[in-house]
């Protein structure tokens, strides 16, 4: 075997920052073998996420957590790492880069030296204890200021991050700012004032209009002296007054340099073999500080280096700013000028300030403080140059007040910073998801598997998909998601095929629909069990082992592994005898807590599993049955006392509630179902946030559906009005059956109605033949399921199964 080795071209990169790091990623991904790379870095380490230094400073993260490329990564890509080895000279004629330990030849050279902090020329600026805020060494110096005095010179974004971080570490911090208010380039005076107040609340002293005269100290910094004579003690002084492009190497090599190293659209400098990117460049008169355009540059330069056509065209970026714990947003231009107008909103009590700067009825500037939720929307209007004339009256209140003008959801997600939390359950931020996608996770399941985002409650799934779409750079048409990772069939498809193919068991479904796993998973098995029992009530044998623990054990599992027991109280009505039986059971089984629930019944919490069947038998003896407080099924029918006792009651709401509960109980549904019946529009049973609600009026019954009062809050929508109790019961029965037959597993009625449309539901229920058929099918199903599971499971043959299989502690004692 022989191979001809073509010597690879040599690429030398100066600077291992975020821009060049991204460049290398792009390059290695597109053409892993195109270049031999040597990477110089003045810092004695590789690429880390500099944006995350603030969380490191405040202690929320460790350095290890913000490393972007570790040794293994560089090793895997064969990068010759020269970390801690500054480049001293570029020999353009011979194409050699020189460090103190010798020269490295190049075919192409990339300068990515980033920026250097600006040091104000005052006496004492070189004393030990004077740092900037640029790299890990600076951060570490600031982390050690707990209990000490620290002065930050510069009240811009960077300075305030430094101040907030040191304050979090327990330092006494003073911020000295030359201008009249903080962050004057991004904020107007009003927002700057609110920011100052917030910082002062956290114990940070803010001194505006303060010019630093000298840093005092003999062996190291001890204090800062201002022009006005004020002296602030300082064990550490952090200079954060600004940055400038680091261009010294380029200047020495006689490349064209203005404010930054001048590059063309392909990121080429005035020397065709030398390229530059990042904060050190100047492109068409513009220099760059935010990370997004730098990443764009990396993409373009990677293509340039692979001889592909690419053009860098910077887009305007908004600054969604984050000073730890403060919420601020700014974009565009907001200086006062002739012809400009302002729309201002202030809520002093809540510390909220919003200002839009208009010119010719177009937004040209946005400043927000305290509530920045609408920032992306305003920014979109500004970028698009939208004529806001028609909505000017309500513009400041945001998109929620503009009929129909829905915000581009992608814009909102795009504007989120990397540290924005997307998944609240698992604490996963946007950056983590982006990294996972860039690391190859191309499907929602893959992202879930490697980040846990959207893997718990799932309410963030839409957001996660948007982040994925943005990262992949494509509009992900929301591909119909498979029921779970075991199948590509959607819920709807599975239901349809169960019916059309006559599938009547879980193994049959898995076999004939080509399940990809053996035995499914905890997502699909309960769904299939429900679909099968709803489709074939008389033939399908319920599979207990495919049920979630609560439904399998007919009690709610608690965090400590005990259970809660809730007997049914029809319509919330009970008797002294029932209460006595509940009290007896509570004492007999040492129930640690007896609690009244929101559904008008009593919860016995902390029951041991082996006691459950015994307790159920006792409760059964008193006529009490399962309340199904654990099921995806009918839970409660909440009622008020209605016309029987209440002086306002118009109908017998209690009686109707009991009748509905006795009709519907025991039925399994896609998710839990809760009802409410109120005897008058005062609505004491809170019927209008239930899955089904009835409000009685003099003329009859107003039936509304699809409310929610859980993770989401939603008022019910009117379904029908009925003149009689019988008709009311018929309509509700038909609605519940329609929901049972059509909804996805784990969708409450409000989600299902949103999918199919309330008008369609109304049409079905209103049609007499359809309604009658629905009611008939419900009754067939109830002929099986309208029975008490507690009675079935507390028989002498079942009871032993609730106890441990064996007790080896006893054997040991013998």
């Amino acid at each position: 075997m022989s191979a001809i080795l073509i010597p690879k071209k040599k690429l030398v990169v100066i600077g291992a920052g975020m821009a060049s790091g991204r460049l290398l990623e792009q390059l290695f991904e597109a053409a892993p073998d195109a270049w031999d790379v040597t990477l110089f870095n003045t810092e004695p380490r590789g690429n880390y996420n500099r944006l995350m230094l603030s969380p490191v400073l405040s202690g929320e993260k460790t350095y290890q957590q913000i490393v972007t490329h570790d040794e293994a990564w560089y090793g895997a890509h064969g990068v010759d790492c020269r970390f801690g080895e500054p480049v001293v000279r570029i020999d353009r004629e011979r194409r050699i880069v020189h460090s103190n330990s010798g020269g490295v030849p190049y075919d192409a050279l990339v300068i990515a030296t980033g920026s250097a902090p600006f040091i104000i020329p005052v006496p004492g600026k070189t004393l030990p204890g004077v740092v900037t805020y640029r790299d890990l060494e600076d951060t570490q110096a600031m982390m050690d200021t707990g209990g000490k005095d620290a002065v930050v010179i510069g009240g811009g974004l960077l300075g305030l991050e430094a101040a907030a971080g040191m304050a979090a570490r327990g330092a006494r911090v003073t911020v000295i700012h030359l201008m009249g208010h903080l962050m004057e380039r991004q904020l107007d005076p009003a927002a700057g004032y609110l920011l100052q107040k917030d910082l002062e609340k956290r114990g940070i002293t803010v001194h505006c209009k303060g010019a630093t005269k000298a840093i005092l100290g003999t062996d190291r910094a001890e204090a800062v002296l201002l022009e006005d004579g004020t002296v602030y003690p300082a064990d550490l002084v952090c200079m954060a007054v600004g940055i400038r492009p680091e261009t010294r190497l380029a200047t020495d090599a006689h490349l064209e340099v203005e404010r930054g190293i001048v590059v063309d659209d392909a990121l080429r400098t005035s020397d065709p073999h030398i390229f530059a990117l990042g904060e050190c460049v100047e492109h068409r008169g513009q220099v760059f500080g935010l990370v997004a355009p730098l990443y764009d540059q990396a993409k373009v330069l990677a293509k340039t280096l692979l001889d592909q056509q690419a053009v860098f065209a910077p887009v305007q970026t908004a600054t969604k700013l984050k000073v730890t714990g403060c919420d601020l947003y700014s974009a565009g231009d907001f200086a006062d000028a002739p012809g400009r107008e302002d729309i201002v909103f202030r809520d002093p009590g809540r510390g909220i300030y919003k200002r839009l700067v208009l010119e010719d009825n177009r937004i040209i500037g946005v400043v927000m403080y305290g509530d920045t939720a609408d920032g992306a929307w305003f920014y979109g209007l500004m970028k698009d140059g939208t004529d806001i004339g028609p909505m000017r009256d309500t513009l400041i209140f945001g998109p929620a007040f503009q009929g129909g003008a829905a915000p581009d959801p992608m814009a909102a997600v795009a504007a989120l910073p990397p540290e924005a939390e997307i998944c609240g359950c698992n604490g996963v931020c946007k950056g983590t998801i982006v990294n996972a996608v860039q690391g190859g996770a191309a499907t929602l399941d893959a992202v879930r598997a490697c980040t846990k985002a959207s893997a718990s409650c799932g309410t963030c799934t839409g957001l996660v998909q948007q982040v994925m779409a943005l990262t992949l750079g494509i509009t992900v048409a929301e591909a119909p998601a498979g029921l779970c990772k075991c199948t590509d069939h959607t819920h709807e498809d599975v239901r349809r095929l169960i019916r059309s193919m006559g599938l009547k068991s879980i193994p049959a479904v898995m076999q004939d629909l080509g399940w990809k796993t053996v035995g499914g998973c905890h997502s699909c098995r309960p769904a299939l069990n429900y679909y099968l029992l709803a489709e074939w009530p008389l033939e399908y044998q319920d599979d207990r082992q495919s049920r979630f623990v609560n439904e399998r054990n007919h009690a709610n599992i608690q965090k400590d592994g005990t259970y809660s027991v809730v007997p049914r109280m029809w319509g919330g009505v009970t008797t002294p005898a029932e209460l006595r039986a509940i009290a007896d059971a509570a004492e007999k089984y040492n129930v640690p807590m007896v609690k009244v629930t929101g559904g008008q019944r009593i919860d016995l919490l902390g029951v041991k599993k082996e006691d459950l069947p015994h307790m159920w038998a006792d409760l059964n003896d008193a006529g009490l049955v399962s309340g199904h407080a654990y099921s995806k099924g009918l839970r409660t029918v909440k009622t008020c006392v209605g016309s029987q006792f209440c002086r306002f009651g118009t109908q017998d709401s209690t009686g109707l509630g009991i009748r509905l509960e006795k009709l519907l109980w025991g039925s399994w549904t896609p998710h839990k179902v809760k009802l409410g019946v109120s005897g008058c529009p005062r609505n004491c049973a809170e019927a209008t946030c239930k899955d089904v609600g009835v409000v009685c009026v003099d003329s009859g019954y107003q039936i509304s559906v699809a409310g929610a009062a859980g993770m989401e809050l939603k008022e019910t929508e009117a379904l029908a009005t009925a003149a009689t109790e019988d008709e009311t019961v018929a309509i509700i029965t038909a609605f519940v059956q329609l929901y049972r037959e059509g909804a996805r597993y784990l969708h409450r009625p409000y989600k299902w109605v949103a999918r199919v449309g309330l008008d369609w539901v109304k049409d079905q229920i209103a049609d007499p033949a359809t309604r009658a058929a629905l009611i008939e099918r419900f009754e067939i199903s109830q002929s099986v399921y309208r029975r008490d599971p507690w009675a079935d499971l507390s028989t002498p043959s079942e009871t032993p199964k609730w106890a441990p299989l064996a007790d080896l502690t006893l054997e040991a004692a013998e």
Partner: protein
Amino acid sequence: MTIFVDIGSLDDIPRQGARVVRTAQGCVAVFRTADDQVFALEDRCPHKGGPLSEGIVHGTSVTCPLHNWVFDMNSGAAQGADEGQVRTYATKVQQGRILIDATLIRASRAA
């Protein structure tokens, strides 16, 4: 060589189900898969202490009922992005009886 002790009949555990064995070291969940394999795992999820014996059994995995961590019953290792491990105990089935590692008794004697 592992010494085993009889804890019950295979039929005492439903397929794709589990029963608990009490030991001095805490509860042990004994699982039976759809194809009658038997596994014994510490009945305590390393995440928040959930009883794995109450989880849904699928293939040779079980999902914790509290927060859906999934464990491979062969190794006791958490699957996917979760990191955690539960102890496993040797079991075997002979003539329809389930036998489990007898050190579970011995450990209790020592205790």
